[in-house]
Structure formats: structure tokens, C-alpha cells
């Protein structure tokens, strides 16, 4: 069971109009693991998550989730599939018109016919798992950023999914909230037997908790490996990324004309 | 389903809306006076209808007893054919006299019915025998001036 692959990604290509975002991605993700996908801003990480969730269609190749090819499913099958997935959005994306309790109860009420008393117990259990049982009456605008993300985490595990995808879970958090979220991701993955995909550019925090890392740059997998391998890696890109160096394979300058000609230091072309 | 104060407000809103619609129908409009489902139609030819319009009231002794439903021009007799839809609660003798009148000096025009003495009643589709045209201001003034002039001549 533990060695079985939950997700297989094969030769995945995706482009917006003519702009290629992903070029021939191959990945395998085993059940029960926490996998990090790292890369600079705009490298196609979030696009990859959307392809797994089936909100985008690949140009070629496929994503296979639990044996089903995601983009070949019809609407009903896709919605059935998504019930097995949870997703934590960058800033939580809590429903602002619902209380914390109702946010966590949202999927249970939409997808199940459970009696209200049982929903109450389940919601409090989920909130207890993220340490916010006492906050169930609050509205989302009364929560701090870290608390909102924990509530969103509780909401995404509401129906005990097989997979949770985290889109930049560490962005904009203070160090304490950051390690709280990191540890929660690890603990919940182990306790519930889920698989987690963490899209992030927070190298230090994620290396502490993940089992395997993929680096994406310019739409291709630049490097992969376990955290130990990554830390020890001498590949220029990985080294630049892990140590946060300014210049390297990822250039500091956006591609541009010659500096001199941009400043009109050369003779103008008549 | 839990009941909330929000539900109460929405309920009140819907009730207010329905009450407003009922006030419009009953108090502002005249839904209770005239019900076109129970009616019979009669026709009248008028030499001149003046400013009479479709939907103008038909009154007898000042009471609304029907409405004008159609106005056509007849190419045979070269006059106006006015169709009246009458409330079936009121029936009128065959020789009822219809004239086009004006409510007030500048008010709307309506058809006034003055009942005659005939035993037979008007039936659906019948034609009014005696009609009187609308007053046209120019004609009225013209007649007045003509009378004045002939009076002066006779002196």
C-alpha cells in the first residue's frame, strides 16, 4: 500500500495560447508521502496543481490520480474525484460569509446527508486537530493569517481526502505560525495516511518536513531528490535556490536589449 | 433547518411586497369594479368620436358599466365603429341612447348611456341605434358665431 503510487504524471505539457508553461513533466508520488514542488515565482508550480485538480486541461501527456486519467473524466466523475482531494489555497480562501464552524462543515453539508449533530462532532474534531476548536464561532475576518490557514487546513481535511495540495502555505506567516503549519502538514499526513503536495519556495521550512523534492524551472524538472540529496547537491540551480543566491543559472536580469542601447548611448539607428 | 431572524425579515419583506401589490390592484387600480370575464359586447356607430380612446369608460348615470374595447373606421358608412364591452350585470333597452361626453372641462372622454323605454334588451353583438357624436370645439364655436350672425341679421 505504502509503495503504491497515488499520482503518475507522464510527459505533461501545458501552454497558455502559445506560451509553454510546462514542458514534459514526469513525476510519481507515493501514498503517505509529503512531496514538495519548488521553483521560482512564475515557474508553473500552481499550474501543475490545477492540472492535478482537473481545473486545467493539459496540451499533451496526462495526470493519473488513483489509476484514473484526470483530464479524460467527465464532469460528474471529475467532481467525484475532487471529493478525494483537498486543496489549501495561498491565503486560505475561507468563505468570508460563513463562520469558522460553517466553513469546515461546508463540504459535509454539500456532499453528505449526515445529521447536524454528527456534523458538529466531526467539525469540532477537525478543528481540534489544528488546535482551533475554541475559535469555531469566529468569522474569518477575525482570524490572523496563520489561524485562517489552519482553519482552511481543517476544511480541506473535512472529508478525509486521499490527497491534499498546498499552494504556497508558508507565504506571509510569522516564524511561529510557519512552523506550526509545517508541523501540521507532516502530522496530518502521517495520522490520516494521506499524501501531501506542497508547492512552495520556502526552502528551509519545507526541507524539514518533506520526503521528496522536485525543482521546477522554466517548465521542466531541474532537479529532484530527498532533502538530504538536495542539501548536498552541487547542481548550480539547486545550489542557487537552496542558498538563495542572487545570480546563477536563474539570472538576476530579465532578458532585455543591450543595456547601452536601451540608454541610447549608441548612435541612434536612422 | 434552523430558523433565524433573517428568515423572519425575509418573510416580512415578502408579505410587504404582496400587500403592496394588492393595494395597487384594489386601491389604486379598479380591479373590483370591472371584470372583463363576465361581459357582453355591443357596437355603436358614431359620426365623430372626438378624442375617445380604447379603454375609455362607458358610464350610465355616472356609474361605470363597461369599457371601450375597440375603435375602427368603417369604409361603408364612413363613420367610427366603436365596440363596447359591457358588464353583464347591467342590461340596457334596445333604444338606449349613447353619446360621447367629456368629464370636466379638460377631462377624458367617455361614452354615456341613457336608457330608453323599449321592452327588449340589448343582446351580445347588438348595434346601438341612437348615437350622438362628440362635441368638437371648432364646430361648437362655429355654430355659436353663425347663430349670433343670423340674430344680428334678423334685427
Amino acid at each position, binding site marked *: 500500500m505504502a509503495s503504491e503510487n497515488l499520482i503518475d504524471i507522464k510527459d505533461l505539457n501545458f501552454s497558455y495560447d502559445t506560451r509553454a508553461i510546462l514542458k514534459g513533466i514526469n513525476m510519481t508520488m507515493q501514498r503517505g508521502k509529503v512531496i514538495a514542488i519548488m521553483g521560482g515565482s512564475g515557474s508553473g508550480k500552481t499550474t501543475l496543481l490545477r492540472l492535478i485538480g482537473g481545473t486545467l486541461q493539459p496540451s499533451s501527456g496526462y495526470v493519473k490520480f488513483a489509476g484514473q486519467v484526470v483530464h479524460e473524466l467527465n464532469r460528474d466523475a471529475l467532481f467525484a474525484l475532487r471529493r478525494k482531494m483537498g486543496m489549501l489555497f495561498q491565503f486560505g480562501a475561507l*468563505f468570508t460569509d460563513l463562520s469558522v464552524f460553517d466553513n469546515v462543515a461546508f463540504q459535509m453539508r454539500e456532499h453528505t446527508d449526515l445529521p447536524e449533530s454528527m456534523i458538529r462532532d466531526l467539525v469540532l474534531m477537525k478543528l481540534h486537530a489544528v488546535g482551533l476548536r475554541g475559535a469555531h464561532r469566529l468569522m474569518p475576518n477575525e482570524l490572523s493569517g496563520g489561524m485562517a490557514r489552519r482553519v482552511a487546513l481543517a476544511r480541506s481535511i473535512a472529508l478525509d481526502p486521499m490527497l491534499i495540495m498546498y499552494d504556497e502555505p508558508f507565504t506571509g506567516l510569522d516564524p511561529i505560525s510557519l512552523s506550526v503549519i509545517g508541523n501540521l502538514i507532516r502530522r496530518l499526513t502521517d495520522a490520516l495516511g494521506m499524501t501531501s503536495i506542497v508547492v512552495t519556495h520556502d526552502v528551509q521550512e519545507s526541507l524539514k518536513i518533506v520526503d521528496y523534492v522536485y525543482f521546477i524551472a522554466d517548465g521542466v524538472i531541474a532537479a529532484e531528490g530527498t532533502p538530504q540529496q538536495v542539501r548536498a547537491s552541487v547542481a548550480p540551480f539547486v545550489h542557487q535556490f537552496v542558498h538563495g543566491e542572487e545570480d546563477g543559472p536563474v539570472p538576476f536580469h530579465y532578458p532585455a536589449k543591450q543595456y547601452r542601447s536601451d540608454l541610447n548611448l549608441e548612435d541612434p539607428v536612422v | 433547518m434552523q430558523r433565524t431572524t*433573517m428568515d423572519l425579515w*425575509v418573510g416580512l419583506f415578502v408579505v*410587504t411586497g404582496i400587500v403592496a*401589490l394588492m393595494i*395597487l390592484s384594489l386601491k389604486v387600480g379598479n380591479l373590483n369594479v370591472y371584470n372583463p370575464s363576465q361581459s357582453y359586447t355591443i357596437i355603436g356607430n358614431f359620426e365623430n368620436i372626438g378624442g375617445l380612446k380604447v379603454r375609455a369608460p362607458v358610464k350610465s348615470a355616472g356609474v361605470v358599466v363597461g369599457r371601450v374595447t375597440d375603435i375602427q373606421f368603417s369604409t361603408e358608412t364612413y363613420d367610427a365603429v366603436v365596440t363596447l364591452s359591457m358588464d353583464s350585470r347591467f342590461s340596457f333597452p334596445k333604444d338606449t341612447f349613447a353619446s360621447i361626453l367629456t368629464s370636466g372641462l379638460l377631462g377624458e372622454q367617455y361614452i354615456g348611456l341613457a336608457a330608453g323605454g323599449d321592452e327588449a334588451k340589448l343582446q351580445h353583438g347588438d348595434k346601438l341605434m341612437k348615437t350622438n357624436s362628440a362635441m368638437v370645439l371648432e364646430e361648437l364655436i362655429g355654430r355659436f358665431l353663425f347663430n349670433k350672425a343670423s340674430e344680428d341679421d334678423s334685427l
Partner: protein
Amino acid sequence: MFKHIVSGIQNIGHRVIESVWRLGVAARFFLLVLLKSSTSLRRFGLVVRELYFTGVLSLIIIVVSGLFVGMVLGLQGYETLQKYGSESAVGTLVALSLVRELGPVVAALLFASRAGSAITAEIGLMKATEQLAAMGMMAVDPIARVVAPRFWAGVISMPFLAAIFSVMGVFGGYLVTVVFIGVDEGSYWSQMQSAVDFRFDIVNGFIKSCFFGVAVTSIAVFEGYDAPPTAEGVSGATTRTVVTSSLVILGLDFILTAFMFRGVS
């Protein structure tokens, strides 16, 4: 110079194509909302919740404006009519203008700026903060769960609001002309009743407000759903909702009036 003219024409053409394109998208979205309305009917609680926000919260502005519009109509109507000695017809004037035109139109304009803009802003913000995407990932269709209930709540509340507006206006006219100025109460009501027809005036006014309700709310939900997911995007969409709905209300009013009242007084 020539280049400027060409680029200007290109610009106009581009804008026209863009607008037609958007209109097509809006039409498809409108159909989608109708197709996905079954959830709203099955779980009417969702619509009731939105009725509170679109209907109940619009009541105050509708009641107050209706009252004032009626009072102004009564005052102006009286001033004009008394010159001809027919001030008793003021009830007719107030009621006909309200029931046929001002009730549906002004209530719809107020509704567009009060509830329409709120709907757009709310849906736009839900999109900008990824709430709609989150809902989609939870296998809940945002159009069925978020858009359709708001659409139906708007469509339901609009005729009620227009009727309340008209009643308040007639009452406002009554206050000014009968209570303050002293027009005969009996002739105020009786002239009104003999002139206002149920089928032609009240039903037509009701039909108008239904059309306006559909127009305003579909514009509002579309603008919200289509808004670029940024702060400027949402504020721009909110403005567009108010502007577009106002123009559509007035244009639609002309078309409907031409259909309904042509040939009759």
C-alpha cells in the same frame, strides 16, 4: 497622421469586437445560471439568505425614495393642474406615472446601485480571494452554489420592491395633496381608480419590473463572476454593473413601453 487615424479605427474595431465577444460570454453565462438553478430550488434556504441581502436591505432606500418621489409628483402635479382648475386629477397623475413608469424604473435604478453593486462586489471578491476556486476544488459548482441563489433572489425581490415603491409614492402624493394642500380626498382616490386599469397599468408595470429584475441581476452576477481577480478589477466591475444596468433599464423601459402602451392612451 495617417498612422494615427488607422490606429484609431483599429482601436474602435478592436473595442467593438471585444464588446460583442463579451456579450456572447455573458449570454452563455446567463444560460449556464438558468441550467444550474435546480440547486437553488431544492435548497431554497440559500435563496432566502440572499433575499435578505438584496430585498430586505434595499427596503429602506426604496420606501424613503418612493415617498419623496410621490410627494414631489403630488406637489408639481398640483401646481400645474390647478392652473386648469383640474387639481382633483392629481391622484391620476401621481398613480399613473408611478405605476407605469417611475415605480418600476426608479426602483430598478435604486436596486442596481444598492443590491446590484453589492452582488458584483461580493462575487468579485470571492473570486479574487480564490473562494470560488476553492469551492470548485471541493467539487461544489460555484455557479450553482453562489451565483444562482443571488440571481433568483434579485429576480424575486425586484417586482416586490417596485410595488412597494409605487404604493409609497401614491401615499406620498396623498400626504402632500390631500393632507397638506387640501385636495378633496374622495376625488383623489376615485379619479385615480377610474383612470388606473388593472390589466393595462398594474400588470404591465409588474411585467416591466420583472424584466428589470432579470436584467439587473444577470448583469450584476456576470460582472462579478467575470471581474479580473484584483482590487481594481472588482471596483471596475462594480462601476460597470451600475452603469450598464442603468442604461439597460432605461433602454428596456423604452422598448417595453412601446410594446405595451402603443395605440392606447
